[in-house]
């Protein structure tokens, strides 16, 4: 797909998004043919990230600052040297971005859509390329943090959309309890089969594929992925408006679920009052182990210390007492605290802790420690 940036200049945001959706509009015959031939087709991909300080129109300055930064890793430096970046403003909330890779003579095209707290990147480039280009850019840009959703979030998002049927999924299981690792990709798998996989293997969905009907037949085929990633495989010709609605709803749902888990509404910051001070409130994110009978040879708290806190270079930590870790995240320069109760973890925000630190920690825990945790946040004001 070729984005004609000149044609999109000064257009309304809705119009720009429509043009992109039109690219994945296909006739029934096209869909059928593509399916039979197993051809790779144009798909619209969306990456969603929390935005805490990146402004549209400043991409080049940000990249230059990153290149000069003393903290930039070798990966970051190589990424910047091996690519060229250009950004053109299309309107107040949309930029057209090109990432050029001279070694492969490639130019990848992206639409950056900036809301008040979240940035969305839309593209039709192939995933192998987006991983090398824009997904790295999102990882390295300061102030940008890709979303991370739980498997129950994915289920809720799909269930909340009208007339959906699950039509495939990826589910994973791994845990510090065991050497067993499971990854199941089920094409054409239904909700029933997903539940079976959850039950049998303790696996949790990391991606859900689903069809959406616009009577009578399936009009939209798309998928939601744990890592703030959404993909339109196709929208049947004539259902483009439905596609736009779905995308709007997806954006809203991704943001809502993200806030529900990771937004730090209250911190235990001190507020001076008269001779003393009061405490603003607290935010605690609990990671609850939903796995039933697992055998332990080592306490979960020791496993957490040895396998995550000790191993990840971004964390410095100390153990106040067994199972109570005071942690500093050097990637975000923020502290937080962990208390381990049985197999559950409670992550407590400190005055300077923000959503990015909590989100990244949960991502690491689900990916590298135990895929069976669910999230539950408590956040309250404590002052009268």
């Amino acid at each position, binding site marked *: 797909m070729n984005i004609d940036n000149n044609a999109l200049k000064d257009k309304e945001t809705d119009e720009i998004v429509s043009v992109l959706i039109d690219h994945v509009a296909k006739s029934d015959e096209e869909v059928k043919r593509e399916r039979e031939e197993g051809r790779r087709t144009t798909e619209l991909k969306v990456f969603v990230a929390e935005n805490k300080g990146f402004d549209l129109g400043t991409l080049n300055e940000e990249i230059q600052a990153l290149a000069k930064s003393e903290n930039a890793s070798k990966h970051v430096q190589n990424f910047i040297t091996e690519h060229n970046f250009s950004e053109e403003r299309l309107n107040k909330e949309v930029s057209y971005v090109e990432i050029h890779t001279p070694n492969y003579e490639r130019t990848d095209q992206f639409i950056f859509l900036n809301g008040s707290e979240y940035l969305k990147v839309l593209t039709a480039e192939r995933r192998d390329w987006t991983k090398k280009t824009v997904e790295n850019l999102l990882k390295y840009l300061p102030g940008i943090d890709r979303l991370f959703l739980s498997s129950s979030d994915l289920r809720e998002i799909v269930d909340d959309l009208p007339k959906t049927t699950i039509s495939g999924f990826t589910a994973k299981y791994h845990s510090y309890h065991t050497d067993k690792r499971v990854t199941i990709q089920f094409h054409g798998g239904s909700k029933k089969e997903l539940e079976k996989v959850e039950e049998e293997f303790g696996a949790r969905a990391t991606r859900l594929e689903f069809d959406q009907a616009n009577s009578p037949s399936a009009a939209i085929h798309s998928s939601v992925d744990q890592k703030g990633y959404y993909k339109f495989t196709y929208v049947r010709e004539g259902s483009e408006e439905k596609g736009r609605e779905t995308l709007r709803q997806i954006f809203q749902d991704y943001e809502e679920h993200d806030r529900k888990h990771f937004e730090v509404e209250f911190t*235990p910051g001190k507020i001076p009052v008269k*001779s003393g001070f*009061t405490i603003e409130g607290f935010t605690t994110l609990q990671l609850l182990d939903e796995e039933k009978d697992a055998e332990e040879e080592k306490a979960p708290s020791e496993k957490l210390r040895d396998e995550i806190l000790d191993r990840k270079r971004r964390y410095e930590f100390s153990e106040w007492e067994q199972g109570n870790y005071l942690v*500093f995240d050097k990637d975000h320069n*923020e502290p937080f605290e962990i208390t381990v*109760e049985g197999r559950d973890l*409670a992550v407590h925000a400190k005055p300077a802790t923000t959503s990015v630190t909590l989100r990244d920690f949960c991502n690491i825990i689900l990916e590298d420690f135990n895929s069976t945790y669910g999230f539950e946040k408590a956040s309250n004001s404590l002052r009268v």
Partner: protein
Amino acid sequence: MDGEWERQKREIDSYNIFFSAIKGEVTGQGLLKHGYRIVGRFLDIPDSYNEVEASPDFVLFDGETLVMVEVKSGENISTRDKEQMKECGQLGIEAAQNYLSDTDIQSKGYDPNGLRYIQPCIIYYEDFIEECKTFDGCEDALAELKEYAAVLTQDKGSALQLEGGNIVSQDLDDVLSDGIPLPQLPDKNVYLTEGIEKESLAVSICYDCVQNNMGKGRLTVSETDIMEYYSNREIPIDRISDVLKFLDDVGACRETDDGQYEFTTGHMRNIVGIEQNFEENLVDDWLEGEAESQKSLSDF
């Protein structure tokens, strides 16, 4: 001096255990759930009519009852404990209402005139109270204390529980008689002890002040900055300068040419691990040791 840091830690833990009893987020139950919120810590509430000034560790309010809480971690019931509770109990409703009117609790929807009861509470560690009951002198002191305040016990993984004494509000009496469950591991919101010993000050500087201000990857502070940061505690400047010197000694920061102290992410391992230094030596031991080694060098 073996065990001095352990003693401080037990005191620090006692405040944090009580703090968990307010929040209740891990156990699903807490004073917050019963409508109590924090008016403040280190408040001095004067009552010129009754000629008292109440200064409890925590003041909580639910719109009707003002709870004045003193948290203890020591191994005795002192006359001061009794005096503190006596003063809290003597505080007049009107004086307390006047005090509350001057705070901004009205903007949060609380009416100072709704205040009905003033409830002094004193909290001890559970194991201490158990032991206390086996000594006549201690048991007598405990009985006397119960005339002035509700005596509560607490411990990690146990409950905040009424031990004895009168609770004026029936609702609060019910809640505390049943006991509020406490987590096995309370999170840390307080690092400073009442006596602000140098070790606890060092830990508080590292965890409260430095780690929450590292946004730019570095923080430079002077002795006066630290003094201002703890403005409600009146910490002697000598103590602050000793602690900053100690932090420099153990590689948690670097003294700059103009006498300030710079903390960077490069120091973070030592900042986070500051407490480990106290397993063997206290701050003064470190500073003396440093002075000794300098002296022996200059002797050559």
